[in-house]
């Protein structure tokens, strides 16, 4: 079953073509990666999928539903969550509150219920807190919940971001360079976490990552984007052997080294 189907997506800014007729799919239950040299258009494609950029042509479907015309908050509601390259936790909010804010789209209490603090709203608030704490425990953050989130160590902040994305109860989780700035032992934890997100929560994962060693280990399918064009798609072994990919990565023999061969 295809979960995410990207078809013929083209995006340009002021005449420069960022994405050119990109076709791309993520199967339900998959762990997939999107790789490519700097400036290939990976983050732009993420921005199209999450509704921040509006491509000039193409179609993006999540479980059969067109999301291209949706606003970002509607895309999230339909089941896509993402994290950023740089950590973007809300300052002056505790760790738990940051994760609780991820549940906004899954709750019903509006402004009037909240002002009056009706019993239903209070029950919901308890449910939100329990789920947020469960997400934090899941990513391995079991203490420091009441601290201002931006005072946590960097590696922890990245995990809180993943917990917050999980709190939106997505079908598909997009991770934009989740390993950037992590130590090698934190990267091992991340690989384990990505596996558990799929295996235990049934959430498909799509990541952009420059650490190709990590990509090869964690992904089942890899897509390669170069200059806005999808040049290859396949299992890690196939991608490593693909001459077009090696060429895109350096255009020279060193391409093999950078692909972790």
């Amino acid at each position: 079953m295809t979960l995410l189907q990207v078809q013929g997506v083209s995006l340009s800014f002021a005449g420069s073509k960022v994405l050119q007729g990109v076709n791309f799919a993520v199967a339900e239950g998959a762990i997939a990666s999107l790789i490519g040299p700097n400036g290939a258009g990976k983050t732009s494609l993420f921005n199209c999928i999450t509704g921040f950029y509006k491509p000039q042509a193409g179609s993006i479907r999540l479980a059969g539903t067109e999301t291209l015309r949706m606003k970002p908050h509607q895309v999230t509601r339909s089941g896509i969550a993402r994290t950023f390259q740089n950590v973007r936790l809300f300052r002056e909010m505790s760790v738990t509150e940051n994760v609780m804010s991820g549940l906004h789209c899954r709750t019903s209490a509006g402004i009037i219920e909240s002002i009056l603090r009706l019993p239903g709203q209070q029950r919901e608030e308890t449910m939100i807190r329990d789920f947020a704490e469960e997400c934090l425990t899941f990513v391995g953050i079991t203490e420091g919940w009441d601290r201002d989130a931006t005072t946590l160590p960097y590696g922890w902040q990245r995990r809180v971001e993943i917990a917050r994305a999980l709190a939106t109860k997505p079908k598909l989780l997009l991770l934009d360079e989740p390993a950037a700035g992590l130590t090698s032992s934190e990267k091992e934890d991340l690989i384990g976490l990505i596996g558990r997100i799929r295996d235990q929560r049934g959430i498909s994962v799509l990541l952009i990552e420059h650490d190709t060693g990590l990509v090869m280990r964690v992904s089942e399918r890899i897509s390669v984007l170069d200059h806005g064009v999808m040049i290859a798609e396949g299992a890690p072994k196939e991608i490593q052997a693909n001459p077009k990919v090696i060429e895109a990565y350096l255009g020279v023999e060193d391409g093999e080294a950078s692909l972790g061969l």
Partner: protein
Amino acid sequence: MGFIDIFSQQLVNGIVLGSFYALVALGYTMVFGVVKLLNFAHGDLYMVGGFAGFLILSFLSPFIGPGWFGVAVSMVFAMIAVGILGVVIERVAYAPMLSAPRLSILITALAVSLVLQNGMLTITKGQYVPFGSALGFGGVNLGSLFISYNQMILVGVSIALMAGLEIFVSRTQYGRAMRAVSVDKDMSRLLGINVNRVIAGTFFLGTGLAAAAGTMAGAYYGSLWYFMGFLIGLKAFTAAVIGGIGSIPGAMLGGLILGLLESFGTQLPGVGSEWKDVFSFSVLILVLVFKPTGLLGKPEQERM
């Protein structure tokens, strides 16, 4: 009267004045928090709130009387009505300007302020309008210090509204969404928060609090005037800056401090009550020069 008597009497006056400032400053600071707009029309919404409370009370007082109960009921309706007006103003005047340069929206706010003031000037022909409440003159004597029931109710209602707001912002999902939007709008969208709706909700609450203050001021002082929002708008801005603009506890603290500064400052030798405003705005300038982030404000962090 001895020093202690003057001191405690001015303390009471300062707290009453500070409650008004704080309620109006809250709306200022909340709106600044979510859309980074200095809503110069906010003081005029306080004025409109006063007139709305007056209108509602004049309809209702045959049934529920012109006392505090009638005023309180009128205040609730005025908060809702003027809150909705605040949302309409945001949708019509501010929302289209949110992506324009900051100066454009500031000028729009000035225009909205002029529209509200001059609209009310035309309706009332510039006359003072008696509020029509009958609140009584009772109170409590503590030695030579007199505290009227009206002052107690006014401060009590203000504290209740502020406590309610604080609980709303810190302990409800909608309040968390407001804080999230004020820090990072794009990230909030990615978490499924409807940012436009949260902004509208913030205008509703902020304007509603100004309307509550306007109704209470009308009932307490006994009359309304189309220009009554101008000065309190500036004072509320001062209070918000003292506390740190964008900070909700800061607005409450700033309002209280400003009220106390005014009531004590005018007691200094050689400083009469006609110097009250000079005193306030000198404080504003000093804060802007020496601690522009205010008492509880945090420096703005620009993000990618």
